[in-house]
């Protein structure tokens, strides 16, 4: 039996209320330990909902989610999250934000200081330890969020469109950074995005999700060699995969008239 990091069985998510929203339906998914998985889909397809369920921020309406064979009941540092908005505490310095997790867990400073320093350097923020988040650019804030998540030593790293709010250049820079870090650590990553290039560049496996109610439409293995870098974006292999995914996504987006927003 393979070493599964995440097992999702028959998961449904319905948001109640006067107008119930069926966000996810029949999600069956397994992610092998050490795999980098990207979830790709149109906005509103429930990608983030799925991530929130794995993180333990929300509960599934039906079905179950296991992370390393433990049923998810609450958030925890074994499943660190990098949010789209960096979600840093604005009154803490960069350093205090990075070490916030270990401090909450009352670890002795010796247990995390070296690693924290290493991640601070890895994400290129040395010299900014004493700055406050609002003195940093969007990309730098997001790097603090990544360092903070890595320092939790998670078994699974959940990333919810972490580069979605960044400008194109910064996004490329961050993608390269993430590739470098990941290829050294090979930690299980679930990465939510609506950017096709980003998904192909980073992931081993790309899942395409359907429009609401969110379902998994297809699974595409990305067999591009590692270590990867941004040059890949210009290569024929890359573009071939890109076209394949694009055609599927287009079909998905065109099927949207179910939703109240009409696309021309």
């Amino acid at each position, binding site marked *: 039996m393979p070493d599964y990091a995440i097992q999702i069985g028959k998961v449904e998510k319905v948001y109640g209320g006067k107008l119930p929203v069926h966000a996810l339906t029949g999600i069956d998914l397994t992610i092998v330990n050490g795999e980098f998985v990207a979830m790709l889909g149109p906005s509103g397809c429930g990608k983030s909902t799925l991530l929130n369920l794995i993180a333990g921020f929300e509960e599934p309406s039906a079905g179950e989610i296991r992370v390393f064979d433990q049923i998810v009941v*609450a958030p925890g540092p074994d499943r660190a*999250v990098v949010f789209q908005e960096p979600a840093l505490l*604005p009154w803490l310095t960069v350093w205090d934000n990075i070490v916030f997790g270990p401090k909450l867990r009352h670890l002795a400073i010796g247990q995390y200081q070296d690693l924290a320093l290493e991640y601070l350097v890895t994400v290129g923020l040395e010299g900014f330890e004493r700055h406050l988040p609002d003195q940093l650019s969007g990309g730098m804030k997001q790097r603090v969020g990544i360092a903070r998540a890595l320092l939790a030593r998670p078994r699974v790293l959940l990333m919810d469109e972490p580069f979605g709010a960044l400008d194109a250049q910064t996004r490329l820079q961050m993608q390269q950074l993430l590739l470098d870090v990941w290829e050294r650590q090979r930690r299980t990553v679930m990465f939510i995005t609506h950017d096709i290039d980003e998904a192909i560049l980073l992931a081993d496996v790309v899942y395409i999700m359907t429009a609401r109610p969110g379902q998994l439409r297809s699974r595409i293995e990305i067999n591009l060699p590692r270590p990867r870098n941004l040059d890949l974006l210009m290569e024929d292999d890359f573009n071939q995969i890109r076209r394949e995914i694009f055609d599927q996504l287009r079909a998905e987006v065109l099927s949207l008239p179910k939703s109240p927003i009409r696309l021309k």
Partner: protein
Amino acid sequence: MTMPAPIANLMAAGAPARLMAARRSTRPLLQILALPLSVLAIWEIAGRAGLLSEAILPWPSLALEGWYTWAFGPTGIGLNAYSGTWLSNVIHSAQRVFLGYALAICVGVPLGTLIGWNQTVARVIDPTLQGLRPVPITAWLPFSIALFGVHDFGAISLIALGSFYPIVVNSTHGARDVNKNLIRATLMLGGTRRQLFFRVVFPSALPAICTGLRVGIGVAWTVVIVAEMVAVKSGLGYVLWDAYYVGRMDIVIADMVSIGLLGFLSDRVIIMIEGQILGWKKLQQV
């Protein structure tokens, strides 16, 4: 249009920049002082010209004179009951404000943040609080005198109650408004509910709490004056009413200005403290 000789000389000497800077710094000050100074001047002139009745509206110089005796005159002389008592009255009022306000903070901030954070606390306490809040603080006066008599604690409890409302309401609002992602981030890093409250909810609520504190100190000075008029026999509020009764309108005016100054000063102190704690918040507003 001809230019005054000194200015023309300066410009010729190549110092226009410095001149402009000097002008820029004096002009706002003039703009600020123009209105109050002209009102005072007109008031003074009208008084001296015999247009005003000294018994109803004494002019500034008379009020200043009255204030001087009130502040620095010898005490214990039967002729002027107010002579030399200004400081002790200021201290009486300030003490009551301080005690009542401190009490309001000690109860209002923890209670407000808890109401904002915890649904059970909110359900148990908030409706009662919102039900009592429309009762104006002045309507509590008879009740407070009946309960505490003409005694310090009557005034202090009224001040506490009056400033408690804005503090508790703003604290509640602040604690309710916490960014959901900060809560999620703390939970996923392994934070407990207790840590969430002290390390995330409370600091997040601080800007709103400070707003409540500023509104609260204003209410505290309002209430101390009302309470002292009725419920005690000392302080600026007591003197205000007493001076009116004996027709010392100069003292009334001096008293009003004193209250205004004290309110202004205590507000500045709170803003100063706020600036010290909320440096991070200022960064967000740029």
